[in-house]
């Protein structure tokens, strides 16, 4: 057995952290996650970082935390799905005995920090074909995909709105969620248009904050006495990056590839899944991902999410912390999907917030503009 165990998870403060930078938030989340695992910084021999606004970010966080000769340094940047992909990379390294305690970390100040540079002379060879169109990214990129899905399959704005409504129901039970007031489908449809067909409430929040997950070997997990929440399957791929016109099929994401691979590796099928954490940068992201992961047929995402399928008490509890739509979204949400999955599988919550007898959680990260896809199957081992 070489499955890495998710021994500890934590967020930094979320929402607005004007007195922190991305490294502060990543570091605070890291030490909190280590504390959750019963470890200290001196135990850490690996660090995996994505999404920090810096060059050589894994080295920076390792320096900041004064790690002592870490042997695993990972900074592969594939957007919001990086952290799910890291679960595989850490697992491979652990199987080779190259790392024993690895921290996957993220931090940002997307809300209060400096904005993107807006140089008018576009020297980037691909961006020169994208920026002069004025496409409002990321929402406009997702809107292009959503519009094509509506054209091919009859998906409606109301179908997309159902996802925002169900997710908000979960957020209402999370004290850390930024948006907790119940909403209706009409609220979503009537909210400010952003990039049609997406309205404001189809779009994720913009937040500050960080998150971290501590992965340890099985022997270390036994020593720590933590619940054995294991990486049972993982797969990653990509379809495009910068230019939506390069996405081979606007209505199919890489999840169509990674889902079946990760499920096979974990030896599960859809009936085994107790809950899901699906990257919800936009409502459409969820709809297409659920289809591509095989929870319903292609084109039937709209009817699948109707009537609270993913809401509390629904058939497939999803984004049980309120998601990027209502809880927080500091920019790379993938790490927060893992954090909530672990808490659910450990049974940390009470009442309706806790999914009963949760043993298997599917976590799916999406990066870029539907560009990268990483699926992780987490399982509470017995």
């Amino acid at each position, binding site marked *: 057995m070489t499955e890495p165990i998710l021994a500890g998870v934590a967020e930094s403060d979320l929402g607005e952290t004007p007195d922190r930078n991305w490294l502060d938030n990543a570091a605070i989340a890291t030490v909190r996650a280590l504390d959750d695992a019963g470890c200290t910084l001196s135990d850490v021999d690996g660090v995996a970082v994505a999404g920090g606004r810096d060059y050589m970010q894994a080295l920076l966080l390792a320096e900041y935390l004064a790690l002592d000769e870490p042997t695993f340094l990972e900074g592969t940047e594939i957007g919001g799905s990086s952290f799910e992909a890291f679960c595989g990379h850490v697992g491979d390294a652990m199987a080779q005995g190259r790392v024993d305690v690895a921290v996957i970390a993220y931090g940002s100040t997307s809300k209060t920090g400096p904005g993107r540079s*807006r140089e*008018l*002379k*576009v*020297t980037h*060879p*691909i961006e*020169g*074909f*994208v*920026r*002069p*169109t*004025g*496409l*409002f*990214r990321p*929402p*406009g990129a997702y*809107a*292009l*995909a959503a*519009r*094509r899905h509506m*054209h091919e399959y009859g998906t409606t704005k109301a179908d997309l709105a159902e996802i925002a409504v169900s997710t908000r129901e979960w957020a209402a039970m999370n004290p850390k969620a930024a948006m907790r007031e119940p909403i209706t489908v009409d609220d979503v449809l009537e909210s*400010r*248009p*952003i*990039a*049609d*067909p*997406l309205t404001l409430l189809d779009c994720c929040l913009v937040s500050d904050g960080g998150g971290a997950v501590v992965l340890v070997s099985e022997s270390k997990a036994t020593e720590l006495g933590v619940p054995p929440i294991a990486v049972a399957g993982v797969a990653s791929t990509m379809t495009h990056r910068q*230019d*939506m*016109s*390069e996405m081979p099929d*606007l209505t199919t994401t890489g999840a169509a590839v990674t889902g079946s691979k990760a499920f096979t590796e974990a030896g599960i099928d859809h009936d085994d899944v107790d809950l899901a954490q699906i990257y919800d940068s936009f409502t459409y992201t969820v709809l297409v991902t659920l289809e591509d992961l095989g929870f319903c047929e292609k084109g039937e995402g709209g009817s699948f999410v109707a009537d609270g399928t993913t809401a509390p008490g629904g058939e497939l509890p999803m984004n049980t912390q309120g998601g990027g739509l209502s809880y927080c979204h500091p920019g790379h949400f993938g790490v927060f999907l893992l954090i909530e999955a672990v808490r659910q599988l450990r049974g940390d919550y009470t009442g309706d917030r806790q999914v009963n007898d949760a043993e298997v959680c599917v976590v799916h990260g999406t990066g870029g503009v539907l560009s990268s896809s990483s699926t992780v199957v987490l399982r509470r081992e017995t």
Partner: protein
Amino acid sequence: MTAAVLDRRDEWDGPVPVPSGSNAPFWEATLDGELLYQRCSCGTKQLYPRAVCSGCGAVDPPFESSDGLGTVHSYTVCHAPGEPGFDTRTPYVVAVVELLEGPRLLALLDVDADAVTVEMPVEVVFWRVSDVAAIPVFVPR
């Protein structure tokens, strides 16, 4: 084919492409109203221009002139400006246009937002936005 090139240099305050490397021939041709794509001898067609063919790996696959005709593969109506200089343009339409030759490109549609449909036939015109580049913009045909 060559399409109309409208001089928008005075009124354009949005981003402008800076030609470099393998895309330099593309932008140079836009000044004459010509829309280029790359068509490799292996049959692969690609846009944006690249130094290698994404099908067979050949270096510097040759350019071909497109007829500038296509359809709206998908579109979005941007109600919030996505770039500097677009504040006064909202709502504006951005589309993935599929050329009849096959390649797709992202482009502004110069059309009323209410008039756009998926699969709508469109044709290219060029807006000259700098001394060295004219951007392809599509209009209904």
